[in-house]
């Protein structure tokens, strides 16, 4: 009998729970993405996922901006775990990559130093009277979509194939830094070769382009963006990425962090205004999608319910390549059906 070949890939896998998730929402710059994720989980995959009304920020942005001490963040995390415990769940799913890093960091610290866990329990009890259990599993929603990528594929109306050429669409992915750089073993594929987004792209017919600055930070930098005077840091780092990916002519950028997705979209506009430069041949910019938006689009969800109209780099060129049917008349309609006044046009970036 021949020996089973060693599969090194297994070393790069992480445990991702199968069902019964507690969802923690982000600061929500992409509300359509979060709504799509819940719809995919419940309606496409038939999973149980709790959207708890009493949740709040994990303080992650404040923690990494140094305005919230670690002891405070640790106890706020404990409160969020107490909500999960009360609701009878054990699998924690934080929408934001910063939150994912914060929750993973706190749980790892507690595992290594049980006195800190006791301290967090005590602080929470004194402050709120609450108690909590540790989650059995912490997974980012992109982990879950990755896990079920092959189950979703047969339900998809579209593939990542250019309908004009018949060739796979070429994508670059940007994985949020705190997904795997802080705790590499907590990310699918670890920090150097994260497969969480590239696995989706490949499964759904696309081609992943490697580019030199693939792992470079988007430039958020917390205080480097949040303080207006420091924003040069932020745009400079995004620019480094755009320049690095430009020669490969990607059809789109895929992200798994709400912050990264926003910056890689909006900084393209800023650079176009400052330097009259766009990073595609035709002057429209490179569309940036969240993994929820991409999954939703391929499943046939309405792009204007997913929120693509909130992107500064418009996504119609990409949707046309995929062959997605959409109604342009619905793009600027509100929930009441009222047609809203059109947004102003950028000076350089074509829309």
């Amino acid at each position, binding site marked *: 009998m021949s020996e089973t070949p060693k599969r090194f890939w297994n070393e790069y896998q992480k445990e991702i729970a199968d069902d019964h998730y507690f969802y923690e929402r982000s600061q929500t710059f992409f509300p359509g993405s979060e709504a799509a994720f819940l719809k995919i989980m419940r309606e496409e995959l038939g999973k149980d996922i709790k959207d708890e009304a009493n949740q709040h920020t994990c303080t992650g942005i404040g923690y990494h901006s*140094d305005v919230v001490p670690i002891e405070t963040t640790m106890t706020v995390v404990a409160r969020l775990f107490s909500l999960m415990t009360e609701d009878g769940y054990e699998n924690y799913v934080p929408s934001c990559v910063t939150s994912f890093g914060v929750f993973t960091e706190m749980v790892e610290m507690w595992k290594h130093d049980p006195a800190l866990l006791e301290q967090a329990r005590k602080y929470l009890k004194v402050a709120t009277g609450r108690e909590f259990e540790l989650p059995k599993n912490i997974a980012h929603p992109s982990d879950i979509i990755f896990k079920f990528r092959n189950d979703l594929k047969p339900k998809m109306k579209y593939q990542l194939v250019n309908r004009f050429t018949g060739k796979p669409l070429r994508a670059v992915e940007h994985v949020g830094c705190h997904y795997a750089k802080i705790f590499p073993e907590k990310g699918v594929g670890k920090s150097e070769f994260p497969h969480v987004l590239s696995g989706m792209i490949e499964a759904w017919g696309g081609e992943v382009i490697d580019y030199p600055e693939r792992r470079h930070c988007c430039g958020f930098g917390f205080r480097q963006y949040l303080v207006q005077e420091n924003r040069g840091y932020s745009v400079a780092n995004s620019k480094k990425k755009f320049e690095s990916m430009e020669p490969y002519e990607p059809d789109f950028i895929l992200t798994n962090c709400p912050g990264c997705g926003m910056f890689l979209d909006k900084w393209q506009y800023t650079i176009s205004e400052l330097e009259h430069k766009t990073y595609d041949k035709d002057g429209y910019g490179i569309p940036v999608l969240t993994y929820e938006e991409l999954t939703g689009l391929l499943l046939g969800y309405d792009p204007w319910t997913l929120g693509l109209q909130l992107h500064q780099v418009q996504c119609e060129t990409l949707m046309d390549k995929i062959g997605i049917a959409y109604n342009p008349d619905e793009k600027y309609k509100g929930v009441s059906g009222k047609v809203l006044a059109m947004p102003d046009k950028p000076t350089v970036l074509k829309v």
Partner: protein
Amino acid sequence: MGNLHDLLMQDLRFGEALKACMNCGVCTAICPAAEFYDYDPRRICDTVQRQDEEEIEKLLRSETIWYCGQCMSCKPRCPRGNIPGEVISVLRKRSQELGYFKDSEKGRQQKQLMNSIGSNILEIGYCVHPDKVDPAYHPEQGPIWEWYIENIEEIAPKLGANYHGDGPGALRKIREENLEEVRRIFEVTGGMELRKKVLEVEP
């Protein structure tokens, strides 16, 4: 003045953050801040490791410690398992507690952050929220953001958000009883004390 190095070591994170740096400079090579600023995390780790009190005090009063973007790209690359970005977090915390942050322009920006992110957490239960991202101060967000904010009551519900609503959902109003518990956590764990210290900065 007590021993500053000992004070750094008392932070929960310090033991993991800096074990033994061999000064290879990989952290600086990978660092986005080092490309943008005159910034060198290798030197910071070296200064802290040498336990030179005078140099550590200079660091705590410097612009330098405020240049890091907390991306933690340094963490997986360090061959000794140090976390220079977390050394920075410890230095920043102590700089604020000791009032040294007031000596640097970048350090004084903490007041602005406390008044924005810090206040948002306590007042609305979010670090950031579209209501707090005024297009006038965020020209980089482009005309789409202005359009969104002008029409958010029409757009957000279309995307499934529960804008300012009770119950679950994106952009929901965080209930007062939850905010009150978060505030009590800040009182009990030192969050309010740090807030007070940072807000002492003169305009």
